[in-house]
C-alpha cells in the first residue's frame, strides 16, 4: 500500500470571483519508503499540497489516503489525532520551542501524543545519538547552530515513528554546504527507517538526494 495517494485533488480558497485555485486536479502517489522532492516557484501550490497531505488542510475536491487513512473524510478532531500519530513535520527555520532543550523539543511530540515517558526518553536519546546531537541534548535552540536546529526538528518529526514525513523548505535558512548535509541526513534517516517523505524545496540543487522529483506549477503537478 502506498504511503500517500492523492487523487484528483483540488483546493480552492475563497469563492465566486475571489476564488483562487491553489491545487488543480493534482494526483500524486508516494511509495512507502519513497523520498519525493516537490519543486516549484513561489505560489505554485507546494505548501498547499504539503498541508493537505499532512492533514493541515482539507481538500475542496478529491481524495487523500495516507496509508489506510482516508484523510479527506476526517473532521478537525480526527485530523489533529492523525497528525499526532501518523505524520511528522519539519518546518522552515526549524520552529523549535525556544525555552526547551534539544532533547525536550523532541520529547514534546511524544508528550502531545500521550506516549509512555520511558519509551519516549529512550527514543529521544537514540535519535539524538543518530543525528549526532547527543552532546547538544541539553542545549536550548538559541545555543544551537542552524544545522543543529534543523536536525533537532528532524528528530522531533521522527519521534512518533510516522508513516509519512513532510519537509517544508528544510534547507531554506541554511547555506549550500549545510543544506547539502541536511538533505543527506534526511535521505539517510528516511531511507534507514523505510518511511515515506516529501521534501518541498525551491532549490533544485537539493533534489538529487530524492528518489523522484515532482514539479508543481500553477497548482498542477508534472512528473
Amino acid at each position, binding site marked *: 500500500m502506498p504511503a500517500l495517494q492523492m487523487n484528483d485533488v483540488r483546493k480552492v480558497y475563497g469563492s465566486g470571483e475571489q476564488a483562487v485555485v491553489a491545487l488543480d486536479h493534482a494526483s500524486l502517489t508516494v511509495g512507502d519508503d519513497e523520498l519525493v522532492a516537490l519543486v516549484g516557484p513561489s*505560489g505554485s501550490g507546494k505548501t498547499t499540497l504539503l498541508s493537505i497531505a499532512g492533514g493541515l488542510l482539507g481538500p475542496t475536491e478529491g481524495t487523500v489516503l495516507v496509508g489506510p487513512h482516508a484523510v479527506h473524510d476526517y473532521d478537525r478532531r480526527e485530523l489533529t489525532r492523525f497528525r499526532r500519530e501518523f505524520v511528522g*513535520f519539519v518546518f*522552515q527555520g526549524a520552529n523549535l520551542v*525556544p525555552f526547551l532543550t534539544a532533547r525536550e523539543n523532541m520529547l514534546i511530540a511524544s508528550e*502531545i501524543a500521550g506516549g509512555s515517558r520511558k519509551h519516549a526518553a529512550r527514543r529521544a536519546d537514540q535519535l539524538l545519538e543518530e543525528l549526532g546531537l547527543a552532546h547538544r541534548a541539553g542545549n536550548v535552540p538559541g545555543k544551537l547552530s542552524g544545522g543543529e536546529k534543523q536536525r533537532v526538528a528532524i528528530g522531533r518529526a521522527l519521534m512518533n515513528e510516522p508513516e509519512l514525513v513532510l519537509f517544508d523548505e528544510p534547507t531554506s535558512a541554511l547555506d549550500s554546504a549545510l543544506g547539502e548535509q541536511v538533505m543527506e541526513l534526511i535521505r539517510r534517516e528516511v531511507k534507514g527507517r523505510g518511511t515515506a517523505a516529501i521534501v518541498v524545496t525551491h532549490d533544485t540543487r537539493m533534489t538529487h538526494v530524492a528518489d523522484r522529483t515532482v514539479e508543481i506549477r500553477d497548482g498542477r503537478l508534472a512528473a
Partner: protein
Amino acid sequence: MRLGWRELVRRPGRFVVAGGALTLIVVLLLLLGGLLDGLYKGSTGAFRSQSADVIVYAEESRNSLVRSRVEPGTLERIGEVEGVDEVSGLGVVLIGGLPQDGARSVDLAVFGYESPNLRVPAPPAPGLGYADRTLETDGVEVGDTIVVGPARVPVEIVGWVEDTRLLFQAGLWVEPGTWHRILETSRPDAALPEGTFQAALVGTDADPASVAAAIEREVPGTSALTIAEAIATLPGVAAQQETFVQIITVTFVVAGLVVALFFALLVLERLGLYGVLKAVGASSRQVAAGLVTQAVLVALGAFVVGGAVAVGLSFVIPEEVPVDLQVRRAVVTAVGLVATALLGSAISFRKIIRIDPASAVGGS
C-alpha cells in the same frame, strides 16, 4: 501541559509584569479584607459573643439598643411565647471611664446583663466587672478600678473577656444594679427603673426566625431580630460591609482584566509557536491547558508573595487602623484569585481555538 510549567520556570522574567501587578492586587485585597474584618470585629463583638438566638427591642426604638426600653412585664410575656426557652435582660451605656492611673480616659460600652454568654461569665458582684482585653493596651490591669462616667462610679476589673467591643468601645460587663447606677448618673433622662432593660435576649432550640416572628406577633410593641439581623442593624455595619464588598469585587474584576490582557498579549506573541504545536498534533485543549496552568501558577505565586507583603505591612500599620488578617479571608482571596485567573485566561481560548495549524507551514 508541562510546556506551560517549563516556560514559567525557565523564563520567569516574562511573567514578572503580570505577577507584579497581581501581587499588588493581592496586597490590596488582603488589606481591604483585613480592614473589613477588623471593622466588623470591633463594631460587633458584644453581639457576636451572645449565646442567645434572638434579641428583642421596643418597636419604637427602630432596633437601636440605646433607644430601646423593655419593661419587666414585657420580659415575662416574651418568656411565655412558645419556643422561647430562656429570657434575660441586656442594657448598654456608651460612656467614658478613667483607669486607676488616671493617665487618659478610655471609651467604654458598659453592659448590664443577667446571663452569661459565649465569652462573658455570669454577672459578678455589684461594683465589679469583666473588661474587654483591648483595655490592656490602655494600661488597665486586672484588679484595677475604673471610675465610670461623670459620677465616677467605681468598677473593679475582675477578669478579661475577649472580643466583646461595641462600635469600637471596649465592653465592660457588670451586673444590672451597677449598670442602672451608671446609666442614671450619666444620662438621667434615660434612667430606667430596676428590672427594666433595653433589650431581651432569648434562647431557643427552635428556628430563631420563627421564634422572633412569634414574639412580635404575641407581644405587641416589640421588634424581635435574630442575632445576625441585629448585627446588620448596628449603626454603620451594613454600610461598611457593602462598601468594602463592592471595593473588593471591583478589585477582583481588575485582577481578572490584568490576567486577561496579559495572556491575550502572550497568545498573540505565541501564535507561531501555537501554530507549530497544533500542526504536530496538539489539540486546542492541550494548548489552552498550558495557558491556564501558567495563569493559575502566576496567580498563586502572586498570592504567596502578596500574602507575605500584607502580613509584613500589618505589623507596621498603626494600631488605630483596625486591620485583622484572617486565614478564612486569605483562603477566600486565594480561591477568588485562582477563579479570576481561570476566567481571565479563558478569554484567550477563542483565539487559541482559531489558530490554524496550517499557518505553521505558511503560505496557505
